Every structure is written in structure tokens, then in C-alpha cells.
């Protein structure tokens, strides 16, 4: 009994109760075998799947966030819009982690459109047009002032 008790404490509290029932059964050989089988029925696995969750797609899934220019055409003549994506100090085009546009397509498209406007002579290259300096911020950039 002492050894059994030690074993029980070693196993832990949860298994203690089940093990004690088994221990009781074993130490009293006089009990009918049917009792032993009944107590061991606690170990039976649940076969019915009625209560388990049904595997399916998340019904509360939100539609993917769309960027500013999703499914829209950006004109190279739209200087005010394009100058929102360049730095006012150096005139360099902002990258994807600043603009927050979707995928590689839109980022490259905006870069190409800005480049086209600069080469065609619509937009200045090394600075931002001073008329558009007070535009609302679209990009995720913070200027140290």
C-alpha cells in the first residue's frame, strides 16, 4: 500500500482518482471482475463526433484591405497626387513600406508613373513642387522637424 501511495503521489492529482479506483480494485481481489471492468470504462474513448467542431472556413473573415489605388488607373499628368509619394526634401520616390500600397504591381506601377512624369517634363525630379507641399499626408512617414 505504501508503494502504491507513493506511485499515486508521483503520478499527480488528476490521475490520482482514477488510479486509486484501480488500486482499490487490485488490493481487494474479492470484488467481482465486473466492477473492475466498470471502473475501467472511464478510459473508453469518445467515438461520436456530434459535439466536435465542424472544420470549415472562418465565417467571420473580413475582406482583404484594399490600398488607395486598387483597381484604379493613375494618370501621369496628375502631379498633385504623384507628388504625395515623393520626399519634399530630396524628391526620391517612397518605397512600399512607406506608401502602403498592395503587392508588387501597384508599387512598381506608381514608380513607373512617377518616373514617366519626371522624364516627360511634368514633375520636378530633385524636389517637390512647392505648391503641393501642404498636401495631406498619404504615406506612412514622419518628418523630424
Amino acid at each position, binding site marked *: 500500500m505504501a508503494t502504491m501511495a507513493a506511485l499515486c503521489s508521483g503520478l499527480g492529482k488528476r490521475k490520482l482518482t482514477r488510479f486509486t479506483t484501480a488500486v482499490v480494485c487490485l488490493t481487494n481481489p474479492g470484488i467481482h471482475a465486473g466492477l473492475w471492468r466498470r471502473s475501467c470504462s472511464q478510459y473508453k474513448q469518445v467515438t461520436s463526433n456530434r459535439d466536435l467542431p465542424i472544420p470549415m472556413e472562418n465565417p467571420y473573415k473580413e475582406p*482583404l*484591405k*484594399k*490600398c488607395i489605388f*486598387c483597381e484604379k488607373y493613375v494618370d501621369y499628368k496628375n502631379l498633385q497626387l504623384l507628388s504625395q509619394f515623393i520626399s519634399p526634401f530630396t524628391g526620391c520616390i517612397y518605397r512600399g513600406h512607406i506608401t*502602403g500600397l498592395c503587392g508588387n*504591381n501597384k508599387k512598381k506601377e506608381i514608380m513607373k508613373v512617377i518616373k*514617366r512624369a519626371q522624364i*516627360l*517634363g511634368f514633375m520636378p525630379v530633385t524636389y517637390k513642387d512647392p505648391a503641393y507641399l501642404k498636401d495631406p499626408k498619404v504615406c506612412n512617414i514622419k518628418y523630424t522637424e
Partner: protein
Amino acid sequence: MVWPRTGTSQPGAALRSLFWVRCSSSRRRNPHSSVNLPETAAALKRTLEALMDRGAVVRSLESLGERTLPYKMSAHSQQHTRGGYFLVDFYAPTATVESIMEHLSRDIDVIRPNVVKHPLTQEVKECEGIVPVPLEEKLYSTKKRK
């Protein structure tokens, strides 16, 4: 400068269906002068006639105004600071684009000739949205390390 490039010129190019080409060019203007000068009108007339000679069907001619150029441009051994912007919508076969560009580059009044594909011909791609990128996978490289 032709932007974007219209592709290789094939022998059957003239037989291909016409496609829209949008020509945009900035022109020189004398400083402190208005748009409605007979010189500009003559220059525009010249270019349109040249376009039509090469088999282009001109749809419309728009003026985008006159302003100081964003940077000093030098063309035909002259520096320009002010210019007028004009946009010509026209249909043209693919093969004539090069000859049009050649002609425009020879014209002194034209500072920067350009031929650009019409934006309405390009289909707008379907965009699903910002797909979330799993950054955890990119944190550690999956290369085999000996």
C-alpha cells in the same frame, strides 16, 4: 522618347490593326508671351499635318497650359525654362511611331516629343487587396547550414 516601347517592327506591322497612341510634347515659347501666338498655331499645324501624312487619324488636340518647366531643358542647342504642354490623341499604326518621333525631334519648336500608349486601351487589373505577408517565415532562413 517613346514610352513605352512599341515593340519590334515586323514586316506585317502595317497590316496590323491600328491602335491608339497618345502624343504629348512640350513646346518652347518666348518668355512673357501668351499661348495665342500665331507661331504656336503654326507649329501645331505643322505637327498635325505631319501626323496625318504618316497615316494617323487625329482625334483631338488638348492644351495643358503654359508654365515654367520643372527643370531647365536643353534642346536644339538652346536652354528652355518656360514651355507649353500639348496633348494629341490619335490613332496610328505601330510602324509609323518611329517616323513620327524622328520628325518631331527635328522640329525646333518642340522641346520634348513623346508618344505614349492611350490609357483607356490598357485593362485595369483586378486587385484582391493587401495580402498579409507571413513575416515569421522570413525571420529565419531555410538554407541548409553545414
